[in-house]
């Protein structure tokens, strides 16, 4: 008895959309029960009050906006989204370590489907992070003063930053294959860039030698753009102009292009 090719009629005909959705739910479902979601929410709250309460007096007096809450909330948003990217890195490293990516490659599935599913799950984490950060910001006194379009722009831009950082985290996780090391590894840029940005105090308050770095680093451009889109009750917020939004968008685009390219490099590794 000879076995020929499997007839077309009995061959599995997997749908890419169905596969993407299955893999996405595989990433999202555990976050509800394993404490990841809870850790993310509590982490955002701790960072909000941890920056706001101790620094309100000492730095609130030296910033130009109507309240320190209005000044600080963009940083809280970016930090929360950074945490989401760290979770993405952790999951990606777990998958790389467990060898599931290699198994996926042996399956009848488009090359980019696992990455697309991980990115979708990352965007879910970013949405959670954004909501929690905005609720925290609202409680301490942050408000949107711009037009509806500016507010929508704020949300879309924050999620774009999230996509860029999640791509970075996912790449680091996949490249290192070490879940325990990824979180501390990402803490270095998160904390040092966060402290040496315009997130907590204006650039003029930093020592002269580091001011060029503070002014030009990506986080500062992102914070300026978010601050412009959120507006203020006084005219102290940056204006929504291309000179403010342009560099911020350019940094996000650069992150996304570079990390997508590096992903392709890592994915080709045996």
């Amino acid at each position: 008895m000879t076995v020929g090719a499997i007839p077309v009629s009995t061959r599995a005909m997997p749908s890419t959309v169905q596969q993407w959705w299955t893999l996405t739910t595989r990433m999202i479902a555990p976050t509800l029960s394993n404490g990841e979601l809870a850790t993310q929410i509590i982490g955002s709250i701790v960072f909000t009050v941890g920056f706001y309460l101790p620094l309100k007096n000492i730095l609130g007096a030296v910033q130009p906006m109507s309240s320190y809450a209005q000044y600080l909330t963009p940083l809280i948003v970016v930090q929360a989204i950074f945490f989401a990217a760290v979770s993405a890195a952790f999951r990606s490293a777990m998958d790389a370590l467990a060898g599931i990516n290699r198994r996926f490659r042996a399956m009848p599935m488009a090359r980019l489907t696992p990455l697309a599913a991980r990115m979708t799950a990352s965007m879910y984490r970013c949405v959670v992070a954004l909501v929690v950060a905005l609720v925290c910001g609202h409680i301490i006194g942050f408000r949107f003063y711009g037009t509806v379009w500016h507010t929508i722009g704020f949300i879309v831009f924050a999620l774009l930053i999230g996509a860029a950082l999640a791509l970075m985290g996912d790449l680091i996780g996949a490249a290192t294959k070490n879940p325990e090391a990824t979180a501390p590894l990402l803490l270095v840029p998160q904390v040092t860039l966060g402290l040496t940005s315009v997130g907590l105090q204006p650039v003029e308050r930093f020592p002269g030698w580091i001011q060029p770095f503070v002014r030009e680093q990506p986080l500062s451009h992102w914070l300026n753009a978010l601050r412009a889109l959120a507006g203020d009750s006084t005219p102290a917020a940056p204006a929504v102009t291309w000179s403010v939004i342009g560099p911020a968008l350019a940094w996000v685009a650069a992150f996304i292009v570079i990390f997508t390219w590096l992903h392709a490099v890592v994915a080709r590794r045996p």
Partner: protein
Amino acid sequence: MSLISETSLLTARILRRWSSDAATVAQSLLFPAFFLVALDVLLGDGVERVTGQSALYGSVPLVSLIGATSGAIIVAVGVMRERDDGLLARFWVVPSHRASGLLSRLIAEGVRIVVITSFVMCVGLLLGFRFTQGLPQAVAWLLMPAVFGMAFSAVVMTIALYAQNTLVPQATEVIAAVMFFFSTGFVPLDQFPKWLQPFAEHQPCSYVVEAMRGLSMGGPVAKPVIGTLLWSAGIAAIIAVPLAIGYRRASRRD
């Protein structure tokens, strides 16, 4: 073999593994270094204007403690991995003192924290931090983070020994973050809202920072040192039995 020789053998094993993992060592030294510089750049001038004293006398101890606690989580996850690989079970069937496994881990933690504190101190010295009280005080200063850090490590390790999932010990990072944000090493006590000041003054991290401030710059020493010792001893007393039971369980896999 005696307890002492077995413990020192196992301690040396842990320290050798730690020091041969270049990535972990670089990370556990470079992160505090970057953090101290960033903190000094951000708040150095502001704190000095408010208090008239250099912020480094609070931030160098704070960053040493951060190095101690963030390393504790990596170490605890390592213990979970050795449990899951069956290494702890192998040690258990070797005819050695039952206490040597746990003792060696705690001693290794103490050594690790002193190394990190020394490194942070060197970065601080470059930034302008100085000892003005004499050599015995400087030596005591160097040991303060290890006193509380070992108690903290014991807590994280206990949690890790009972947890199946490495996310659980990593969640202790949140507790550590609360201690650091609301400590007198971050900003002076009077900068906190009134209702928060009692917590900020009496939580363990602030006691360690104030003890180290007194030992380096001058000022009250006895009260914060006693506070540090009481907190550490209290934590050790609460955690000792669960830790020992957890280690035994992890070693016997039952």
